[in-house]
């Protein structure tokens, strides 16, 4: 074989990468604490006793003291590449790297899953090897560093085989994304499935699963035949279909008013689309209670005027429906405004020059062109409603839906993880079906007719017979929305809603009082703790979300590789996994070693990263598609590596998208509730779960005051961001918000 100078060059590059990871792996094995640190890394309590205390010791120190001997073989794959570092162009180099990486990863995880806090996890191992007489806790920094080393050994080895032009960075990035998606999306779901398949003694049993799955409480049709409630699955489905249809219709009305009515302030309507981003999901529910609850203003007023007994009518289907329609209409609007604008004016003008009237044009040209968009908006509304947790929790009454049932199965007196898993599977089935339909059936059928070439002309106005109904509906809905949000602000200043309407700062003082003491400023308010935790966790999650999202987007937009469709499907999948399902599956998967994360702040951060990943990916794809591909190619032909190209050309040009992803994931982390409520702990309590706790105690004043503060915090973040980056660039990334599930 001809060995050229360029071969040698790419050879040294691989060599440097391997050396880097070898050093990192070395640090993981010899320096970093191997097991998870109970008090967290930054408490630095582990320094007391390090490196000899077995709780804090690195693997090498453990072994030297005769502890955890099963970690000893890991040194072999770690050091194996040293033997071939000088012979990088040989085939042995790549083979050995692949062997070292794969066997290292396999052994690391195999020992982690085999030996847990009670010694061997599986009975047959104890029988085979005898009782271990020892145990181990979850992976710590040492183990994480070493697994990263093995992973990148493997990808570097594969790259050296010539995969993707032998590009170490690209193969490494693909491997990294696959690994984290596997661990934090697929593994928890698999754990959940397996726990649904087990009976209470942990024995696998299909019959138990079938009986749990087909339970009357899930699928019962009592509401049709007798005067009883239907199963939760039907409840959820019924609700989701209604909400999906209603939000689509309202969204279309708004989209038409904004673009086709000649209404001059149509652009102001777009401000509506920011609302669902900054509103914690249950806040609308709270406002509905203030308006229509037993002591709600409207209920009381109507009861007074008509001399009726006020009722709790709003709790249940009507309440959830109204709250969800308020919450999700802006999302449908956001989708449909793009679709309606996407219909090229020249199409409509062509129709009109062919002597069609406005109504005929609308009926035969405009509407057929936006029909796929309508189906898309419906499916999104459907998924949002299915996954919504906050509103049903606050307003559900006796109308049980899947997302809340899952929560009560875990948290309530029953604490039945198996049942929660089964319910989660049912919920997942619905959302995945809708997700699948949206992608496979609609994904390709886009009628967006804009060509990008200066398409002159403006949109035709709507025919009168559509215009006036649209105006009416839109006006009523805007007034309603404004009322609801005013209630939220006003509600925080009222002593006790429905009983005593004197204005007071009491709630704000309870939650956010600040005082001085001998140590300086003293945050006395009850909410400060959770507020700061929330800010901290959200701020930690944001850069990670942006990073993972952008790397994934880069791979999807700029690289070609086998299985790219599956890669895309896997990374977008978490969009269709409702937060409650994430919560349950994380509890089931990350409660025991080797990945023992429950009760830490890390699990919250991770859940945010993967829940918001599709948003980061879409924002990244949208902005990367606008970057001319020849910029990358120019960089490559000028001799820069893909890694250098990514750093020096792509990242700087993506700055607006990165900022958007940062702000967006920050804001979403602050409003999230569905997954969070399963994962919070005493130490890491989040704002939203604190508020839900207040609501459950009927402390509406405090809950609302806190929500208001959250809304304004996020509004500030977004406004600052807009000022920083400018309006045009932000509209696009934020338009991606629709891809998320509450």
């Amino acid at each position, binding site marked *: 074989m*001809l060995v*050229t100078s*360029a*071969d040698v*060059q*790419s050879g040294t590059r691989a060599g440097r990468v391997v050396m880097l990871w070898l050093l990192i792996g070395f640090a993981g094995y010899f320096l970093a604490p191997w097991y998870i640190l109970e008090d967290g890394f930054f408490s630095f309590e582990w320094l007391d006793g390090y490196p000899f205390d077995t709780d804090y010791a690195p693997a090498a120190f453990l072994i030297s003291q005769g502890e955890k001997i099963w970690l000893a073989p890991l040194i072999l794959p770690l050091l194996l590449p040293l033997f071939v570092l000088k012979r990088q162009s040989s085939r042995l180099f790549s083979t050995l790297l692949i062997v070292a990486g794969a066997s290292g990863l396999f052994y690391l995880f195999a020992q982690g899953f085999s030996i847990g806090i009670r010694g061997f996890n599986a009975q047959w191992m104890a029988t085979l090897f005898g009782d271990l007489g020892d145990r181990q806790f979850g992976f710590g920094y040492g183990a994480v560093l070493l697994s990263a080393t093995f992973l990148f050994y493997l990808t570097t080895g594969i790259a050296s085989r*010539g995969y993707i*032009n*032998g*590009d170490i960075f690209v193969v490494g990035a693909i491997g990294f994304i696959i690994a984290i998606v596997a661990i934090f999306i697929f593994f928890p779901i698999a754990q959940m499935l397996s726990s649904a398949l087990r009976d209470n003694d942990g024995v696998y049993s299909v019959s138990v699963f079938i009986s749990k799955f087909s339970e009357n409480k899930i699928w019962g049709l009592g509401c049709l035949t007798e005067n009883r409630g239907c199963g939760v699955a039907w409840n959820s489905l019924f609700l989701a279909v209604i909400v999906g249809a209603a939000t689509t219709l309202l969204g279309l009305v708004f989209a038409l008013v904004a673009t086709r009515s000649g209404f001059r302030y149509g652009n102001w309507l777009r401000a509506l689309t920011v609302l669902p981003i900054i509103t914690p999901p249950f806040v609308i529910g709270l406002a509905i209670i203030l308006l229509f609850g037993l002591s709600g203003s409207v209920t009381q007023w109507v009861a007074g005027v008509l001399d009726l007994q006020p009722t709790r009518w709003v709790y249940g289907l009507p309440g959830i429906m109204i709250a969800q329609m308020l919450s999700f209409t802006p999302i449908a609007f956001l989708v449909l405004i793009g679709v309606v604008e996407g219909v090229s004016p020249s199409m409509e003008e062509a129709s009109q020059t062919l002597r069609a009237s406005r109504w005929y044009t609308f009926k035969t040209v405009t509407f057929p062109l936006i029909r796929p968009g309508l189906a898309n908006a419906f499916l999104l509304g459907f998924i949002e409603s299915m996954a919504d947790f906050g509103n049903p929790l606050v307003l559900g009454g006796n109308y049980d839906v899947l997302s809340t049932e899952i929560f009560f199965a875990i948290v309530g007196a029953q604490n039945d993880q198996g049942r929660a898993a089964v319910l989660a599977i049912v919920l997942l089935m619905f959302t995945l079906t809708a997700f699948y339909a949206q992608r496979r059936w609609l994904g390709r059928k886009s009628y967006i007719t804009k060509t990008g070439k200066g398409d002159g002309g403006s949109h035709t106005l709507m025919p009168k017979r559509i215009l006036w109904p649209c105006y009416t509906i839109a006006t009523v809905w805007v007034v309603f929305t404004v009322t609801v949000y005013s209630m939220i602000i006003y509600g925080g200043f009222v002593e006790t809603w429905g009983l005593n309407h004197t204005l007071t700062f009491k709630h704000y003082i309870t939650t956010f009082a600040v005082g001085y003491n001998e140590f300086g400023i003293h945050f006395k308010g009850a909410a400060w703790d959770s507020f700061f935790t929330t800010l901290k966790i959200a701020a930690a999650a944001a850069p990670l979300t942006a990073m993972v999202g952008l790397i994934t987007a880069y791979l999807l937009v700029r690289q070609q590789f086998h299985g790219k469709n599956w890669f895309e499907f896997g990374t977008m999948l978490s969009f269709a996994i409702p937060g409650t399902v994430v919560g349950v599956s994380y509890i089931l998967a990350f409660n025991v070693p080797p990945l023992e994360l429950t009760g830490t702040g890390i699990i919250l951060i991770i859940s945010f990263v993967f829940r918001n990943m599709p948003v980061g990916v879409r924002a990244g794809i949208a902005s990367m598609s606008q970057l*001319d591909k*020849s*910029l990358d*190619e*120019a*960089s*490559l*032909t*000028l*001799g*820069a*590596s*893909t890694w*250098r190209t990514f750093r*020096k*050309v792509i990242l*700087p*040009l993506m700055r607006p998208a990165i900022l958007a992803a940062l702000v967006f994931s920050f804001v979403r982390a602050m409003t999230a509730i569905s997954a969070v409520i399963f994962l919070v702990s005493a130490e890491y309590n989040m704002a939203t779960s604190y508020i839900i706790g207040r609501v459950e105690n009927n402390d509406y004043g405090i809950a609302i005051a806190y929500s208001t503060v959250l809304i304004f915090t996020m509004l500030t973040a977004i406004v600052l961001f807009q000022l920083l980056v400018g309006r045009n660039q932000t509209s696009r990334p934020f338009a991606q918000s629709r891809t998320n599930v509450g």
Partner: protein
Amino acid sequence: MNQSELQTRAASVEFRSVSKRYGTEVTAVDNVSLHIEAGELVTLLGPSGCGKTTTLRMIAGLEMASAGQILIGGRDVTQLPATDRDVSMVFQSYALFPHMTVLENVCYGLQASGKSKKASVERAEYGLDLIGLKGYGSRLPSELSGGQQQRVAVARALVLEPQVLLFDEPLSNLDAKLRRQVRDDIREIQQRLQLTVVYVTHDQEEALAVSDRIIVMKNAMIAQVGTPRELYEQPASEFVADFIGEANIIDAEISDVTDGVATVHVGNFILSLDARGLSAGRAKVAVRPNRIILQSGDEADGRSMPGVIDKATYVGDRIEYKVRTGSGVLFCTSEATDHQWQGDAEVRVRFDDNGPVLLENRA
């Protein structure tokens, strides 16, 4: 020698039966073999979709060959990605990095290949000087005109002293007047520095003007290779004759071939033409419009045929005629603009001595 002066490291490029397939359906380049000498400017010319850009991108390493071998300077680079090839490219869109100044753009490749900051800047400034943009280093690309951006892109590629310099339709974003200027600049720099340049275009006039040799491509294959003069005056096929300039393709009959000279019957007269490897039988003759001479009068002389003016169009520097003859309607131009035949005028049609040429490919 001045340290920062550019040196030529021009190398040859060779394709050995190279193919590029996308999936199983699409073949963008089909079994192409070609050889480009060091220091030569070769144009890849053809209609869109003919595979010329894919060929260029395979030289750059932006596309990987599905089969065959690619050699640059005699070295097999088939498997090397773009980063590791000693080739730079000037893109149709220029692809200047919008977030970097002109100087940073030109320095980019130098620094990527490990040069010190100081050496890079020195070299980059020399490059900017070379293309006449000295003093523009601190501007952003968006502050330059299209022609200036183009030249920065050239400088950015040149300072790396690549073995091969590639141009992908470099003039297509410039207005007509600027095109001629930039075209001449590129040719001038190429000849001064003795660079190996591969140049893609779909504009035949541009190709004729800049190239040492032209490779005409059609349907993923090479249709003909030759100097501009060879291609224009001796097209091998109807496609080449028609694609480069305009041509009348006339059915003919070869009655006899002796010593490489064919006796060809066209309409009612007989021509002696280079046989170009053909034997007796049906054939086709190509004649450029400006190689057809129209005369008045009606006497038959065995060297001309009768025709009737179908249509005459005055286009400024010449007059275009369509003439009905026994061999079909011929398209011809006359630079004698003082005299213009009107429709239905009867003329004699004669071929210029070096006008007609037999097409090698009978199809």
